[in-house]
């Protein structure tokens, strides 16, 4: 990956995460007010709306911004490494929750306490998709971290 491509990707990612965190905050506030927020994109991708998601998304956004902002290789790698790791973890947790909740529905149906099984909305959350994009960033960050912390004999 060339430097300028990477910068572009990082600027785009940080913008997306920061914007999404603002949406999550907005959704949460609307929810508290008992109003409808922006809960999905085209009825397919679900959007979060709770304080926890807001903070997690904001954190990732800030760290990606940091990785562009800092010129120093070690500072920017640190931000990129931690930021992409959190992005991937966020995605993984949502996937896990989605799978768990779907299993729950299946169990309820088996016990005869529910009639139909539907996929949990967590599986289609935007965090999940964004986390997939985060994987190459994480791999790249790990490679850079390796070279920065190499033992020189």
């Amino acid at each position, binding site marked *: 990956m060339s430097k300028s491509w990477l910068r572009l990707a990082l600027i785009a990612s940080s913008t997306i995460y920061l914007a999404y965190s603002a949406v999550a905050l907005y959704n*949460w506030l609307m929810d508290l007010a008992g109003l409808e927020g922006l809960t999905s994109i085209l009825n397919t991708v679900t959007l979060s709306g709770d304080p926890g998601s807001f903070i997690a998304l904001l954190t990732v956004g800030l760290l990606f911004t940091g990785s562009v902002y800092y010129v120093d290789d070690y500072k920017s790698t640190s931000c990129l490494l931690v930021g992409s790791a959190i992005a991937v973890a966020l995605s993984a947790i949502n996937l*896990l929750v989605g799978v768990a*909740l779907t299993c729950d529905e299946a169990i309820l149906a088996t016990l005869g306490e529910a009639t139909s099984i539907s996929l949990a909305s967590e599986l289609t959350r935007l965090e999940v998709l964004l986390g997939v994009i985060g994987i190459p960033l994480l791999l790249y960050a790990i490679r850079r971290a390796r070279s920065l912390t190499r033992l020189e004999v």
Partner: protein
Amino acid sequence: MSAHRGSQATRRFKLALVGNPNVGKSVIYNEITGGDAWVGNWPGTTVEKKVGRAVIGGVEFEVVDLPGIYSLSAYTLDEEVAVRFLVEEKPDLVVVILNAVNLERSLYLLLSVLEVGVRVVAALNMIDLAEGQGYKVRSDVLEELLGIRVIPTVAVKGVGIEELRKAILDTLSEPPSTYKVNYGVDVERAIEGLASKIKGYEPAGAKLNVRWLASRLLEEDKYAVELVERLNPELLKVAEEHRRRIEKTLGRPLDEYVVERRYEEASKIASKALIKAGVKKLSLTSLIDYAVTHKVFGIPIMLTAVYLMFRLAFDVATPLCTLVDYAFSSYLPSLISSLPMPEFASSLIGDGVVAGVGSVLIFLPNIALLFLALALLEDVGYLARAAFVVDKVMHKLKLTGKSIIPLLLGFGCNIPGVMATRAIEDEQDRKTTALATPMISCAARLPVYLVFAGALFTAYRGSVVFSMYLWSVIFAALTAIILRKALFKGVSTGFIIELPPYMAPQAKSVCFKTWLRCKRFLLKAGTVIVAVVVVVWLLSVTGPSGYLGVGALEDPELIEQSWIGVVGHWLEPIFTPMGWDWRASSALLVGFLAKEAVVGAMGVLYGVGEEGLSGAIASSFTPLTAYAYMLFVLLYVPCVATLATIRGEMGFKYALLALAYELALAYSVAALCVGVGHLLGVA
């Protein structure tokens, strides 16, 4: 010869483990004793000395895991515990655990222990990490310079443990260490003079190491002064004279000089034993820490970690909760009612025992996952960072950095939290933290929140539970400020928590810790809670008029005549402002024994199962009165076990103070919550 061997076989030797915080002492303790000491990747996890038993080569040992310390200067409570043990209990052998990554500081402690004049074996631990950083430590050089056995180990992988066992056995039959740090002619002369004076007052058979005592006395070490004062107060004056004379020649305080000399010696030895295989410009730990401890990113990262932990604990556990729920609220009850049994027995088992166990077990999946996440974060080394990051904020609340550790532990259970306050040097800080810790919402309170939030705040369930944790932090902070202002005045000591290196978590350690904590929760559930639920069941089917029959459990009018109903009614007027009925009041009484018991008790009081409890709560509380009730449960009293711990750590007076303060606070907060709610027009 045979007589000697016979006495060896029957005698139990005392073995002490000493080391800096976080060197892997507890891991080695567990390896040697097969015990279950808490292993955590952060300083200050061994807050009390722990005693276990070990048999090495047929010889029996009593093994004591002392708290982690940096020196033997009796400056902190931990150090005092350690030095007292070494001098008064006279262990037969001390294993000093060295950190290969921080050799100099480890050697400083080792020298201090050698000076006491005990048998010492050193374990050179964490050699894997040192090698990763491009160091090699030559244990043979250390052995030669120090005159003791030094065994390289990687405790977490069990490397070197067998050799360590053998070294312990071999050293046992040798004379104690006579290693002396050379403090220079003037100081040595003073030490000798003072030592011979002390010798004259030494009670017969006391076997004091007078040289050590003399040198500590010159340093004005708190513990040495106390010890010598008991022998003869005159000695203190003699020591004072010597000190003044030396300080004049040195032109500086003696204690400062002695510490410096010992450090010089430690670093001289370290430099001889260390070989650098290469240079590492940057460690992975410091690379990661740039972002993690960053002044802007640090706190958001910490909050994110907490959020991820909670998602894992509460959402991922859902299917498991469903299964437990099915077992205890449908499957087992129908099984029991189908068995041929008298009505009384069938109700006791079905409505008392099974319902009680079930209403606690249903939260086991949540709690187990929370503990799993906590153990992971602890072992990776992140909890120490979380503490470091919040440190700055906590300083504004007049608390020391170290207060964070007990408070964070308090989220799991308040008891280890209160116990961990022992690692805080300053007495005022320690007491403040110990009394603020019960405000932290422990895992036992969670079941209560979950039931209430689930019953009345379906859509906002998560937010409502989250808000309880926020309140808990706010009240802990307020309590700390109030106590600092009113009761424990004085400047708070600044303290920067030292950060351990990041480590890959060990599956064994993480699972073991999760299991230990769950076991504790289950034992509580299995004994206290079930007992409480059964007692509540009994009190519900009997009353001032005698046995009411099991019908009382389903008949609200009948249960009102039971003991529970009667006491609940006595209490009801007190809680009328909050709009809670007598059942809610009775359940609070039960919750004093253990907070998670509130849920089980309510199940019995409303005469419904787990499934029905939500409905019962939804119909007898409004969201406002339920929220006030949750706040009350958060604050009203620490459980009996926590109170007992506070009593043990600080005395009866403080336990009473905690009880009174929290009752008053909880009542005012709940009343305020309902009052404000009404003013705002919330039903």
